[in-house]
C-alpha cells in the first residue's frame, strides 16, 4: 500500500515537472503572420489574414517537440487591392460565408539540415490535406520564433476557379514571434 502511494506520488511529481517544462505560446493576428502571394499571367498579388487564434507548445526547450494549432478567420482576409479582397472572399476562391475558418494542426516536427520540417493538416474550404514545409524555429529571450516560406497547390483543396488564368501554386509566408 505504501509502495503504491509512493509510486503515485512519484508519477504525479514527474507529471507536474513535465507540465512545468512545457511552454505554451498563445498565437493571434498580432504575433503571427499568415501571408500569401498568388501569381497569374504576368502579375502577382499579395495578401494575408489579419485574425487568427491558436497556440504553440514546446516541451523542455526541445524545438522538435513543437506543436502548432491555429484557426484562421477567413473573413479577415486582406490583399493589395480592395476589389481583389472582395473577390477572394467570394466563392470563386475562399467562399468565406460557407468557410469562415481555415485551420492548421501540426502532426510532426523534425530536425533537418537547414532547420526544421513541419508536417501538419491544413483544412481549407472544409477539406483537410497534409502539408509539409521547411521552417526555421528558434527560442530567443523566451520568445518562440518560427519563419517559413513554402508553396501549396490551391486545387488540392478544391480551389479550382480560374485554372489556367490564376496559377495553382500559392506561396505561403508564415511568421510567428510569440512570447
Amino acid at each position, binding site marked *: 500500500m505504501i509502495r503504491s502511494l509512493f509510486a503515485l506520488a512519484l508519477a504525479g511529481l514527474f507529471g507536474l515537472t513535465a507540465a512545468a517544462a512545457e511552454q505554451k505560446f498563445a498565437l493571434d493576428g498580432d504575433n503571427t503572420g499568415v501571408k500569401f502571394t498568388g501569381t497569374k499571367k504576368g502579375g502577382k498579388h499579395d495578401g494575408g489574414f489579419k485574425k487568427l487564434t491558436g497556440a504553440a507548445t514546446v516541451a523542455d526547450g526541445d524545438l522538435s517537440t513543437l506543436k502548432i494549432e491555429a484557426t484562421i478567420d477567413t473573413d479577415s482576409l486582406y490583399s493589395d487591392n480592395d476589389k481583389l479582397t472582395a473577390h477572394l472572399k467570394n466563392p470563386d476562391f475562399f467562399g468565406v460565408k*460557407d468557410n469562415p475558418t481555415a485551420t492548421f494542426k501540426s502532426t510532426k516536427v523534425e530536425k533537418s539540415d537547414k532547420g526544421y520540417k513541419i508536417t501538419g493538416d491544413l483544412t481549407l474550404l472544409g477539406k483537410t490535406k497534409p502539408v509539409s514545409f521547411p521552417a526555421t524555429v528558434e527560442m530567443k529571450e523566451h520568445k518562440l520564433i518560427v519563419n517559413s516560406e513554402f508553396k501549396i497547390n490551391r*486545387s488540392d483543396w478544391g480551389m479550382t476557379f480560374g485554372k489556367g488564368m490564376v496559377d495553382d501554386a500559392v506561396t505561403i509566408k508564415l511568421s510567428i514571434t510569440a512570447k
Partner: protein
Amino acid sequence: MPTPPTWMILEMLRDIILPVAGGAALIYALFLMAGRWAAALGAAAAFVAAFLWANFQLAIDEEHPHVLWEQTSRLIAWKPNERYAWHFLPRAALVLLLVGLGSRWTGLLVSCVLPERAWWVKNLLVWVPRWVAILVAGSWVVPAPWAEAHSWIKPALGAVMLFSWIALDGLARSEWSASAAFALSAMFVASGVVILYAGSDLYMKIALVNGLAFFAIGVVSYIAKADCSGAIPAGIAFLPSLIVNVRYQLAPNGVPFVCFWLLALSPLVLLLFAIPRIARQNRWLLLAARAVLVMIPLALAVGLATHYEKLPPFGDEEEAVSK
C-alpha cells in the same frame, strides 16, 4: 470602363461562348432532324449538353496525373458539396427539366384519353408534379443559414419559380416559342453583368452559360419554328436560385439590393400576357410589348449596378494596381 485583355476574351470564347452556344445549337438541331415531336426533348438535351460542355475541363498536370472528379469541373462541382447550396443548382435544374418533360408527356397522353371538358385534370397532372419538384429542388439551393434565419425564403423562392414557369411555359408553347428562350437569355446576360459588378467571375460565368445556351436554343427555335419549352425549366431553376446565392455569398459591394430583386422577378412580367384580354391583342403588338416589358427591369438592374459600383479591373490594369 476597363476592357478585358484579348487573351481573356479568347479564353472566354474557347471555354464558354463557343462550347455553350455551339453545343446547344448543334444538339437541338440534331434532335429537330428527327422530327418536330423531338423539339421539346431536344431543347432540354441542348441545355444539358451546353452546360456539361462548358463545365467540363481536364485539369491534369505533373502533380495531378490522374483524372479525379474534382479536377474535371470548371464552374460547379459535379458532385455537390453539402456545404454549398449553389453546388446543387445543376441538380435542381436537371430535376425540373425531367419533371417538366415527364409532366408534359403525361398531360399530352391524358388529353388524348379524357374528354375536353375535363381539361382541369390534365392541368392538375401537369402542374402538381412541377409544383412538388419546385418545392424539393428549391429547398436544395437555399443556403442553410439563410433558410434558418428567414423562414420565408424557401416558400418565396418556390413561388417565384412556379409563377416564372407558368409565365414562360405558356409563351414557349406558343408560336412565339423562341421569344421565351430569348427572354431568358436576356435575363441571364443582364444577371451576369450585375453579378460581375457585384464581384464574382464564377457566378457571372454561370449566368453567362445559361444566357448563351438559351440564346442558341432561341435562334434554332426561331429558324426551325420549333417548340423550345423543354429547356425552360432549367432557366426557372437557375435564375432566382443563382440570384439568392449571389446575395448570400458575395462580400459587401455597391450594387443596390433592388437590382437582384429586379433580376429574380423579371420573368413574372410575362404573367401579364396570360390575362385573356391582353392575350387577345394584336400579336405583333404583344411581341413588342413583351420585349419592352422584359427589358425594363433588366435595363434598370444593369443601369443601377453600373451607376453604383465599378467594374473590377482586368489584366494589365489590375497588375498596375498591384505594382
